[in-house]
């Protein structure tokens, strides 16, 4: 459990960091909080030549509320989200999901950018990015560009990020007041990775029917998923017991998880249906 040897750089500017990555042509890895990368190195699942530590890039630590988004700097940690009182109204779904991320000590170092770049299929932050149609802002040697979450996650631990690119910001679209939302996760122990979880929201029209439904799930595929067939059940419907039962059935029909050491595929399939059911009940009971 000792890491393989590597060189270490701690650049003071983003352009320096990008130049280091570009110069190593895939041989360098970005070190943010290290809470996923260091275990990978300890298991020797990766052996980069160089780690580029972003800890001096303090610009990446800010949480900005703009007129059209909640913009999380890539180096924002879970404990920063937890302690930012603005986010409870600016993005309650994010706050609820982040409450399930990892254990106390890891929350003091783990970052949103690191989680997005790591792309664990059972991790909460990639799930929130998918559900909320986040834009992921990356900086590379060709400059900055944004990648939609739906294009970013390509498989287990596999993303659209190129070797010379660094995630600098995750932008979640503005959260209107009165939006209904739910987050439900099941893990054997609080803070562990989800066996399955559901993150969802919808708005209400004048007739009390759901519109703009977004339903995302984690832990049931090689990447976080949006479930359009479940959203179709919700849109235009009153969210009552009958609709929730239909949504649960649509959820289990839409996923086909593999079996692994933690749970059978059949169990996860049933579980994620229950997570969507409970998240919808949570949303329906809200009094905005």
């Amino acid at each position, binding site marked *: 459990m000792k890491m393989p040897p*590597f060189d270490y750089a701690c650049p003071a500017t983003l352009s320096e960091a990008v130049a280091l990555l570009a110069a190593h042509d895939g041989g360098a890895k970005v070190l943010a909080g*290290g809470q996923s990368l260091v*275990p990978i190195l300890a298991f020797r699942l990766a052996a980069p030549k160089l780690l580029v530590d972003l800890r001096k890039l303090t610009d990446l630590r800010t949480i900005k509320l703009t007129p059209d988004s909640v913009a999380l700097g890539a180096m924002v940690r879970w404990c920063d989200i937890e302690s930012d009182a603005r986010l409870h109204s600016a993005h309650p779904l994010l706050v609820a999901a982040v409450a399930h991320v990892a254990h106390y*000590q890891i929350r003091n170092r783990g970052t949103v950018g690191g989680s997005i770049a790591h792309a664990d299929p059972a991790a909460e932050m990639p799930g929130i990015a998918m559900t909320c149609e986040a834009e992921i802002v990356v900086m590379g040697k060709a400059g900055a560009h944004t990648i939609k979450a739906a294009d970013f996650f390509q498989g287990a631990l596999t993303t659209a990020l190129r070797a010379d690119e660094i995630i600098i910001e995750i932008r979640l679209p503005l959260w209107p007041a009165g939006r209904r939302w739910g987050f439900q996760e099941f893990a054997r122990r609080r803070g562990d990775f989800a066996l399955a979880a559901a993150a969802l929201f919808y708005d209400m029209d004048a007739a009390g029917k759901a519109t703009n439904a977004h339903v995302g799930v984690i832990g049931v595929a090689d990447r976080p998923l949006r479930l359009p067939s479940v959203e179709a059940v919700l849109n235009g419907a009153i969210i009552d017991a009958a609709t929730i039962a239909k949504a649960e059935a649509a959820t289990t029909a839409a996923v086909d998880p593999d079996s692994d050491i933690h749970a059978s595929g059949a169990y996860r399939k049933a579980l994620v249906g229950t997570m969507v059911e409970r998240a919808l009940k949570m949303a329906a009971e809200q009094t905005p």
Partner: protein
Amino acid sequence: MKTRFDVNGREVEVAVEPRLTLADCLRHHLRLTGTHVGCEHGVCGACTVLVDGEAVRSCLMLAVQAEGSKVVTVEGLSNDQGLTPLQASFRKHGALQCGFCTPGMITTAHALLSEEPDCDADRVREVLSGNLCRCTGYVSIVEAVLEARAAYKGSAR
């Protein structure tokens, strides 16, 4: 690489390979063997130390990342006069058996109680869920932390 940081109030400079974890640096270079290394991949919590006042897993941090930080280990949470209130509470409740997990329990509990001296039993259990005790003495550990809360109210430690 040369790295300087503060450990338990003492400025240190160490020459380490970049791949050396802070945990191994504390134990092997600085001889602070109170910090225990269990799983070495961020699961067991035995290696918890405080970095700039926050509880972190020292096996998931490189020593070179500690440059300029203030690190406090379990040795830094004891004194020569006797037991601290947290230590005394662990003793009173029998909150340790083999003692391997205890340094991580103490550092984690200290960080929690310093920030949240009014925390309830659920919060203590949630925070300590990241620290494994294989003697399975969690009930007594939670009781010890709850009783130590009184010493953290008003002024820390």
